[in-house]
């Protein structure tokens, strides 16, 4: 039975390999046939007789070295060639009026009128500044120098410096105002992203993400679901729209900022093969520091003393023996393994004549440090851009992904809780199956069973995704263009879960106690966008661009889940639920939402000096109440390129100076479908013991609000972009202020009203901040040594301005306080521990020495709800990132650091409320727990209370877990070597780069880690916080907390990137 499981793993691995080889073969075949196809396409164009003049020439850089691979295109046509290795080219053009456009990465684009010339010598200027760089601004593009809003742009090179399974974690610390915090340590997880802080008051993490997370747009199409479906290597560029004047074009979708992802597409020219591979190994950066054997025994003794000498948690015989013979098992060390990551990516791209193409496949696989946790992904991608006729273009991008994610189980808290005084193996070498025999927790099963009995553990999510975007473009007249974008995104998830008996996760011993689970979910989104663009320059100086949009979008999802209990044989797992002893269905899910949008945008530029952008968008959303479904968003932005003014020409040090200002309104429809209709809670009940009495039941739990409308955010942004000393130093400074009103929030009602919550348009928030981005080439030496650095810094201050009732200053139940950030900690103030000398005073509060001492804020000698106050929040005082690059003769070294300072971190594993929250049995010594400086009669510390075997519920323990979460981390160090072309040309390889990267090399500064409270202050999950003994929930469930999850890892990667 066991064997069968491993066979199926083998099958899967085998299947993956076959898929990979198969993919590569297909690529090679397609490459050959495509070249033939491309040639015939070119011939077909030749044969129509349009070309009748041949121009030859060569392209040089300023230093007179020939440039190979330059794109040369006859403007307004599909006719193009690429310069040869010596920079020479030959192209047939239609007439002397033809204009040739020369473009090459890293150089300025140059247009040349052919005229009478037949032999051209073209010199391209290196693009010293990124000002001509094209930036995606949503429903179009603009040159950086023409942008009026606040946009951060991150290129593929930057992203690839930190290879991760998803691009979001690669963005950490790379752009000002983008705050990314880890919220999981599972393989394949992403993080929580906020651009310029939170705006909306949400009650849960899911709701918070729904309203405040940025919109992700891939090739113009909104991208739902997991970002891990996109391979970082497929990304050409990421542009992040931050201010409202830029995001207003996304209207109701744009309030949280917009991340625009552009994927790689084919470029005209010979086929270019790109092969990317890296292999990484990862290890835990450390283990949770728990009591060792003797410390654990002492802790139990102290807990017994703390309970007046009695304890239900004495040592078992085995533990007693273990103490005598020096057993001190480090369970974490036994379980965690070395993780690994591997990615192969092969692609080919090119284009000739009217067609540009790219296609490729990749395989990504990650094994986590927790046995049983892994993630793998296969993807195939194709892009085709085709010039159908002189005025018609069409193209497609199709990304197809298949991923398997095995989440295994979470052994972490079990490992920390298990007694160190028992041995993992029995003297005869067999596994000590139930190491806690003779104790209250005698059923606990040895954690090593998750390795020895891995075939009984399955927690698999299989996802198929196909993300497709098609476009057609029609040049109606020269300046007027119509474009249609159609997006279709389809995802299908299947969950397969099996927990057989005799493992750490299912401690039962018989197969009738196995559990099985099968879930299926599908989701699709379609988007249809119609765009009209008019772009014309009048009288040489007035450039007008108008964009009009009409679009509709529909999202759909549904799911069904079934649970089984018991199975007749282990190998059946969840494959045939009909063989389960019992079967139940979970609630099915179904949601649909629709959005209709109209948008108009006018860009006007006078002489490249004065720029104006005006936008209006109108959105209608199905999730809002009838009659309140539409909302209009205006935006206006102005910019002044001061450096283009005549009077600046003489001020040589300043190479670029631009002033920008913008205002806009964006909004949010971030409520769940059907919130305006209301939902009944579903229960079941059996009247009596016969099926005749079985009935479904319903409860009113939430109230419907029939007048829900939009929340809206208005934002002002002022920015300065500057470049000094010929762009050797560049930078920008942004200041913004935003106000959000009519916030859609789920308002918790007093329980006595009978309904728990209602969604309302209420509340106002405000945010303001500063963002500074600097770039500099610090050293550039003649011998080729170069040191450049990028730095970003941002501060955001969010606060609640008004609650549902204008007179209300605090809504404790929901954790909202006027004047405070959107999520705060509201609890008692821990002064320390009651000492023996204070026992009389302690008794006033019903406490005794060794217990937590809380400040009696109102001095009434009673500790209750009115002694709570705001004692911290999750908003950092500032965040910053720094990237240093050193290069010398093909060798480069990159170092990325990231800081998030001044926020409070919440650590549930130092808390307990006797219920499901915090660390169950935290201070009563029933189980092992984290090492800490606890109070005893001889150790009168103020840090942690006295252990007490008599109490599951440590009074005021929630206050133990609020700690300084500031940190500065080294994100990555990467060392690369580009082999010289002299070497590579012999083997027909155009470039080859080898690199070594270390991710998460070390933590530079963190009081949390330094004090031994944990491994990483950054967070790894949500909630888990104890209720406050003073009443209420001190930390809202939406806050990221540091839970007892898998330790963070340090990863070394070895990679190769080759073009040929």
């Amino acid at each position, binding site marked *: 039975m066991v064997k069968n499981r491993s066979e199926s793993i083998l099958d899967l691995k085998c299947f993956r390999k076959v898929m990979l080889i198969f993919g590569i073969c297909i690529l090679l075949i397609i490459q050959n046939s495509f070249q033939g196809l491309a040639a015939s396409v070119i011939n077909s164009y030749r044969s129509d007789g349009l070309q009748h003049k041949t121009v030859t020439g060569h392209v040089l850089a300023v230093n007179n070295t020939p440039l190979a691979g330059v794109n040369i295109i006859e403007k307004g046509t599909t006719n193009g060639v690429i310069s040869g290795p010596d920079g020479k080219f030959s192209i047939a053009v239609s007439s002397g009026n033809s204009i040739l456009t020369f473009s090459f990465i890293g150089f300025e684009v140059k247009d040349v009128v052919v005229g009478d010339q037949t032999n051209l010598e073209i010199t391209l200027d290196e693009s010293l500044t990124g000002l001509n760089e094209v930036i995606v601004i949503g429903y179009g593009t603009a040159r950086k120098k023409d942008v009026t809003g606040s946009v951060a742009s991150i290129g593929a090179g930057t992203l690839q410096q930190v290879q991760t399974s998803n691009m979001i974690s690669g963005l950490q610390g790379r752009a000002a105002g983008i705050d990314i915090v880890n919220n999981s340590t599972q393989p394949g997880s992403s993080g929580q992203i906020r651009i310029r802080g939170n705006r909306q008051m949400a009650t849960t993490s899911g709701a918070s993400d729904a309203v405040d997370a940025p919109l992700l747009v891939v090739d113009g199409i909104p991208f739902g679901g997991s970002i891990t479906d996109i391979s970082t290597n497929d990304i050409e560029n990421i542009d992040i729209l931050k201010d409202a004047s830029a995001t207003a074009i996304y209207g109701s979708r744009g309030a949280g900022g917009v991340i625009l992802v552009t994927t790689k597409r084919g470029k005209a020219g010979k086929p270019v093969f790109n092969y990317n591979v890296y292999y990484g190994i990862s290890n835990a950066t450390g283990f949770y520091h728990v009591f060792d054997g003797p410390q654990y025994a002492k802790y139990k003794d102290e807990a017994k003393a703390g309970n*007046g*000498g*009695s304890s*239900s948690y*004495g*040592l*078992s015989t085995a533990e007693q023996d273990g103490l005598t013979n020096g057993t001190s098992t480090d369970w974490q060390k036994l379980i965690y393994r070395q993780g690994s990551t591997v990615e192969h990516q092969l692609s080919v791209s090119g284009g000739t004549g009217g067609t540009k193409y790219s296609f490729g496949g990749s395989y990504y696989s990650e094994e986590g440090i927790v046995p049983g946790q892994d993630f793998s992904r296969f993807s195939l991608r194709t892009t085709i851009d085709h010039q159908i006729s002189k005025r*018609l273009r069409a193209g497609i991008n199709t990304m197809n992904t298949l991923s398997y994610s095995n989440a295994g189980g979470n052994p972490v808290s079990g490992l920390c809780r298990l007694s160190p005084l028992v041995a993992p193996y029995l003297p005869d070498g067999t596994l000590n199956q139930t190491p806690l025999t*003779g104790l209250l927790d*005698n059923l606990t099963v040895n954690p090593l069973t998750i390795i020895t009995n891995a075939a009984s553990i399955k927690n698999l999510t299989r996802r198929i995704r196909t993300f497709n975007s098609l476009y057609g473009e029609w040049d109606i007249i020269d300046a007027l263009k119509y474009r*249609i974008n159609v997006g279709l995104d389809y995802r299908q998830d299947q969950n397969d879960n099996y927990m057989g008996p005799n493992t750490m996760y*299912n401690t039962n011993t018989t197969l009738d106690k196995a559990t099985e689970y099968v879930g299926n979910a599908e989701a699709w989104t379609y988007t*249809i966008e*119609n765009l009209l663009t008019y772009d014309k320059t009048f009288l040489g100086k007035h450039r007008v661009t108008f964009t009009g949009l009409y679009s*509709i979008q*529909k999202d759909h999802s*549904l799911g069904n889940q079934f*649970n089984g*209990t018991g199975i007749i044989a282990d190998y059946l797992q969840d494959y045939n639920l009909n063989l389960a002893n019992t079967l139940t*269905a979970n*609630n099915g*899910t*179904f949601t*649909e939402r*629709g959005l*209709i949008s109209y948008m108009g945008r006018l860009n006007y530029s006078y002489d490249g000096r004065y720029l104006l952008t005006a936008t209006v968008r109108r959105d209608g959303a*199905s999730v809002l109440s009838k009659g309140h479904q539409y909302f209009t968003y205006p935006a206006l932005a102005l910019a002044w390129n001061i450096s283009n003014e005549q009077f600046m020409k003489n001020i040589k040090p300043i190479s670029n100076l631009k002033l920008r200002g913008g205002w806009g309104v964006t909004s949010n429809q971030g409520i769940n479908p*059907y919130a305006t*209709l209301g*939902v009944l809670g*579903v229960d*079941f009940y059996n*009247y*009596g013991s016969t099926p005749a*009495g*079985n*009935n479904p*039941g*319903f*409860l*009113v739990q939430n*109230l*419907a609000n029939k007048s829900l409308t939009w929340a809206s955010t208005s934002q002002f942004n002022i920015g300065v972009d500057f470049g000094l000393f010929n762009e050797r130093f560049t930078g920008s400074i942004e200041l913004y202020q935003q106000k959000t009103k009519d916030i859609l929030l789920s308002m918790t009602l*007093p*329980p*006595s*009203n*009978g*309904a728990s919550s209602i969604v309302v348009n209420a509340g106002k928030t405000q945010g303001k901040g500063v963002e500074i981005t600097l770039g500099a080439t610090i050293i550039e030496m003649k011998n080729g040594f170069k040191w450049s650095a990028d730095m970003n810094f941002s501060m955001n201050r969010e606060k609640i301005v008004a609650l*549902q009732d204008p007179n*209300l200053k605090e809504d404790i139940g929901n954790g909202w306080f006027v004047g405070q950030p959107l999520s705060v900690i509201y609890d008692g103030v821990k002064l320390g521990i009651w000492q023996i000398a204070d026992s009389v005073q302690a008794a006033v509060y*019903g406490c005794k020495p060794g217990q937590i001492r809380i400040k009696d804020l109102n001095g009434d000698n009673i500790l*209750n*709800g009115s002694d709570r106050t705001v004692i911290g929040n999750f908003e950092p005082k500032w965040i910053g990132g720094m990237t240093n690059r050193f290069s010398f003769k093909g060798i480069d070294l990159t170092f990325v650091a990231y800081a998030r300072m001044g926020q409070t971190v919440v650590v549930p594993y130092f808390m307990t409320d006797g*219920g499901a929250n915090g660390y169950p049995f935290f201070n*009563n010594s*029933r189980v092992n727990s984290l090492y800490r400086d606890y109070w005893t009669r001889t150790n009168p510390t103020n840090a942690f209370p006295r252990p007490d075997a*008599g109490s*599951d519920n440590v009074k005021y323990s929630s206050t133990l877990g609020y700690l300084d979460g500031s940190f500065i981390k080294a994100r990555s160090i990467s060392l690369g070597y580009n082999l010289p072309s002299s070497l590579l040309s012999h083997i027909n390889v155009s470039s080859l780069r080898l690199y070594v990267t270390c991710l998460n090399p070390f933590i530079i500064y963190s009081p949390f880690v330094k004090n031994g409270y944990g491994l990483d202050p950054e967070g790894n999950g949500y909630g888990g916080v104890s209720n406050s003994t*003073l009443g209420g929930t001190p930390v809202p469930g939406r806050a990221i907390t540091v839970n007892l999850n898998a330790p963070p890892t340090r990863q070394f990667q070895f990679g190769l990137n080759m073009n040929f």
Partner: protein
Amino acid sequence: MKRYIKSLLFLLLTIVLMLANCTKILDEQPRASVTPDYFTTPGGVLGGITGVYSDMRNLWGTEGFLNMVVGGTDEVLKGGSGNPNFFEYGIVNSDIADLWRIAYQDINTINGVLQYGATVALPDATRLQYLAQAKFLRAFYYFYLVQTYGDVPLHVTFLSNASTADSRASIADVYAQIITDLTEAADQLPAVPTAPFLGKAATSASAKYLLAKAYLTRGWSGAAVSGDFQAAYNLCVDLITNKATYGIDLWQDYASVNIKANDYGKEVLFVIDHSTDLKYGEYTTGSAASGPKENKSNFYFRPNYPTINANYPASGGSSVMIRDIPNGRPFIRVRPNGPYLINQAFAERVNDSRWDNTFQVAWIANNGAITTPRGILTPAVDTAIWTPPFEVTPARRAAFKGIIVTPSGAPKNDPTSKSSWDPAMFPSMKKYDDATRAQLNDGSTRPFVMFKFSEVYLIAAEAAFKGGGTLQNAADMLNVLRQRAAYRSNKSAAQNTAAAAAMTITPAQVTLDFILDERTRELYGEYQRWWDLVRTQTLSARLNTWNKLEAYPKYSASNPPNAFALRPIPQTQIDLVTQGPAFPQNPGY
């Protein structure tokens, strides 16, 4: 021309896509959730009632609820893993919120049932039955709310507008509503369970039981109305006289009362149903005590028998027992209060069978042949652990192979262990045992028995004692139960008759304390005690007498005698009332 056609086709396709059905895109049609409109259908009205019954599973059988109504009384001490907050009157805010929240959530749903049920298309008889159920349930929750919190908000109409304001109504108003609802329910409910409300759902008898208790409780309270005790007594007499009509009666043997087979038997008036059905019973099997709707009453009263080692009280040696299904899952939350039970309530253990039928005191060896200092235990034969309600001689201890834990705490004899056996090992209350559940750690599959016919006699006795009848009436009522308790199936008729005679009391013996002791004998651990002591205003006095080390000290500090006779208003309620006057807390918190 060719290209022109291409353009045309392209344009055509575009137009088709542009005109894609886009007005409908803003309409909503839920398909996997039930909208409140369903309430306006017959199925919705029944579903609302059922939802409320189902929601009760979130209270009775849960640990928080156990702490609230069992903890901090004269009957129990905190077990080794118990929560000191209730047992010792510490801070209780965080554990008190469930009853409040669930009661009001259910009351609101019931108000919806009453509103829509009045007009929805139903046969008159069915409508009457549904509405009577609803009235019963509304009164049921208000009765527990008013006893627990005192003045509470009184809502009798379905909530249609969200409000963050609320205020408390006087207990007089709340009792008036309870009595109105229950009087109507008692008239309109059928005498015996009738489909669809099968099993032991509300009937006319259970409504009368609750009404009697409501009169009794109001009679004791500051909102007393003259005639309350009389009304309570009369209702009890009505139930006893007409017991055949209601299909109710007492079992001959007290041992039959609390066994699984009789959960739907003649002595039971009303239960909260549970079953092994994963769907309708909302039963979770194999889970780690996580299902909030599980009936875990079979866990809380258990001692930590698997940790008692062979050398006890010294350390070392193997465990003499292992956890198994018949002996149950040891939660160690509640420990019997030895001094009160042994010396007072169950001082009579010969003629009265109820001590023996309430507690398990012996554990038969089940962990192989374990060697203790006094011999080898034979599995399934020898008693491995014995927790007698008396002290034993050293000679007897030496002759006993297993472990003996006596009430004085001996052999541990630790003066700080508050006596009453050992916090980890004590007699186990067995009324809620469920030996037929599937897995060791599973909650009980038995229904939670709420109202029993036997308590009608106790209510009648208390009402008579308080003036609703004569002392003779009170003694008569108590004697019915006492004489029944004298019966043992393994004794001869003559022996039983003699025992019954010995158990019979005279009117002169009827005192309030006697009635309260009798309630312990009959109903020990049945989730009533805290309310009993609060109702009879004896909480402080009886804790002073019987629970001085654990529960009483908080009283003696600086609080008036009847402080803590109300539980605190949940802090969430106070925090969330953000409009209008602040929601006041009960005194002492």
